[in-house]
C-alpha cells in the first residue's frame, strides 16, 4: 500500500499500544476477547479495526500526558494512547453491540508526518 518503513513502524507501534491497553485494562481479573482486522480501500487507505467487549473506553476522550515535565515530575502512564492520537491520520471510536470499536485510519502513500517541533 506504499507505506514506507518508518510509517509501518509507527502503525505497528500504535497497534501495540492499543492492544496492550486492552490487555491491561479492558478485562480486569478475567479473560476476554480482542478482535483485530485490517481493511484496505481502493484509494489506498488502511483501516485497522480493534474490537473488545471490555470496560467502555474511548481513547479519544483521555487526557494527554504533560510531556514537558522533568524526570521527577513525569508520570509513567498515558504515553501509549498519546502516540496513537499523534501518529495515526485519523482515529475513530464508537460503541457497537456493547463493544468498543476503535479504528486506526491511515492514508496510503503518505509521507510520514514530521515529528520535529
Amino acid at each position, binding site marked *: 500500500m506504499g507505506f514506507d*518503513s*518508518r510509517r509501518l*513502524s*509507527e502503525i*505497528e*507501534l500504535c497497534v*501495540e*499500544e492499543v492492544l*496492550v491497553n486492552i*490487555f491491561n485494562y479492558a478485562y480486569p481479573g478475567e479473560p476476554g476477547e480482542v478482535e483485530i482486522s485490517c481493511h484496505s480501500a481502493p484509494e489506498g487507505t488502511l483501516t485497522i479495526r480493534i474490537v473488545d467487549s471490555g470496560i467502555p473506553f474511548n481513547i479519544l476522550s483521555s487526557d494527554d500526558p504533560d*510531556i*514537558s*515535565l*522533568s*524526570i*521527577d515530575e*513525569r508520570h*509513567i*502512564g498515558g*504515553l*501509549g494512547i*498519546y*502516540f496513537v492520537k*499523534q*501518529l495515526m491520520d485519523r482515529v475513530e471510536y464508537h460503541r457497537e453491540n456493547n463493544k468498543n470499536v476503535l479504528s486506526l485510519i491511515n492514508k496510503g502513500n503518505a509521507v510520514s508526518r514530521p*515529528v*520535529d*517541533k
Partner: protein
Amino acid sequence: MEINKKKEKDVLVISVSGRIDAVTAPDFEKNLSESIGAGEKNFLIKMNQLEYISSAGLRSILAIAKVLKTKEGKMIFSGLQGPVKDVFKISGFGSIFTIYDTEEDALKQF
C-alpha cells in the same frame, strides 16, 4: 531484545539491541535494576542496534531514571536510530534526557 554490558571507568555502558516492547520491557527493567542493586549508578544506554521501542519501554526507562536520581546517579543515551529517535521526540524523552550521537561523546559527560 539483547543486552550487553561493559564497564568504562565508572560508567556502565549498556548496549541494547532488537526491540523493547510490552513483552521485553520488564526484562530490560529487571536487568538494569540488578545493576543498580550491584552498586552501579552511571548508565550510558547505547541504542545503535535498537530497532523499536514502545511506551512500555519508555515506562521502564523512566522508572530506572527515577531510581538513579535518588542515588545521585545518571542515565544518558547514545546512537538513537529511526523509529526509536522519533518515539523519544514525540514523548518528550528527547528533552528530559541527554542524548549523544556517539558513545565517545556521551562518555565525556560523566
